[in-house]
């Protein structure tokens, strides 16, 4: 019930302010047509004079330079230390052998000896 009353009140609010909103949209729509034509003419001039059609703002170029500089800096820096190497990477080095790997080796050894004797 409360939401229904809220809906009615919102409806009243929008009924009162709808004409102003529509007026704003209409004014913007008319103004937008003029701006559109102006930009179209500007683009045509840029096209026929053989200049860049992107027509970027000076701020955009500045931003591009800053971001490119930041990227280059990142790339030139040494790669960061891997604090969490994977198990495979650990096995490659002789410094670390996991206990589970050691145990499995001990268990496997007698079996391999028997197999060797059989072959002989």
């Amino acid at each position: 019930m409360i939401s229904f009353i809220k809906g009615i009140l919102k409806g009243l609010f929008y009924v009162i302010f709808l004409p102003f909103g529509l007026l704003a949209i209409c004014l913007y729509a008319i103004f937008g047509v003029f701006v559109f034509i102006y930009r179209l003419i500007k683009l045509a001039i840029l096209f026929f004079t053989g200049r860049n059609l992107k027509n970027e703002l000076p701020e955009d170029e500045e931003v591009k330079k800053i971001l490119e500089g930041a990227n280059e800096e990142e790339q030139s820096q040494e790669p960061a230390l891997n604090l969490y190497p994977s198990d495979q990477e650990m096995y490659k080095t002789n410094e670390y052998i996991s206990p589970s790997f050691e145990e499995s080796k001990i268990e496997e050894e007698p079996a391999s000896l028997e197999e060797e004797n059989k072959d002989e």
Partner: protein
Amino acid sequence: MNNILISLSDGDKRLIFALLLIFIIILVFIGLLGFVLMRIMKFQSKKMDTLVHDAVVTKVIKDKKHFIRYGRNKNWAYFFKQAYIPMIIIVVGFIVLIIHNSVNNYWGYNPFSTYDGFGTLFFTWKLSGDYTGGSLIRFAKLVLDNTPHFTVIAWCGYIFGPCILVGGTWYLVAVSSLLARTVMLYKRSKTIFEKSLDGYNQNEALNNTNTNN
């Protein structure tokens, strides 16, 4: 007031009640419609953040005035990008109309006419001149004027009508988006360069520096 109520017939009272109900339903419907529109415009306004984000974060933009000028330029550029397709559709519609009128040498043609225009595809009604209702409130009766049918002579209306409807609606969506972004631009311009002293005490700050020293 009482006299008016007494003079009303049962039919009138029922009619007033029905009208009141319709009025309330319309209000609720407009409320929902407004709510949906506001949500859409809020969604559209988020694009403004994307447009100016890099320039603000890299501190290329120094102050509020500069921010508004830059934001406005980006906003209109994005509007141009959004509006060129609907504009092309509308222009195509008008070119077809101009060609049709110049070929027939008749410039008073109504492309939405129910005889030889886009209106032939719709149901239309007209006032009959008779009235219905109670003693106090009366309604004019409507009679069916046109049933949907297809005629070859209305070909121009069939191209012009959809072009204007689709292009126009699309263009209005672009305009509402432009308006939403403009509102967002001014909202952001107030907060981005804001310096707040909430909870700041200069004496406390001084004491802290003294004890550190």
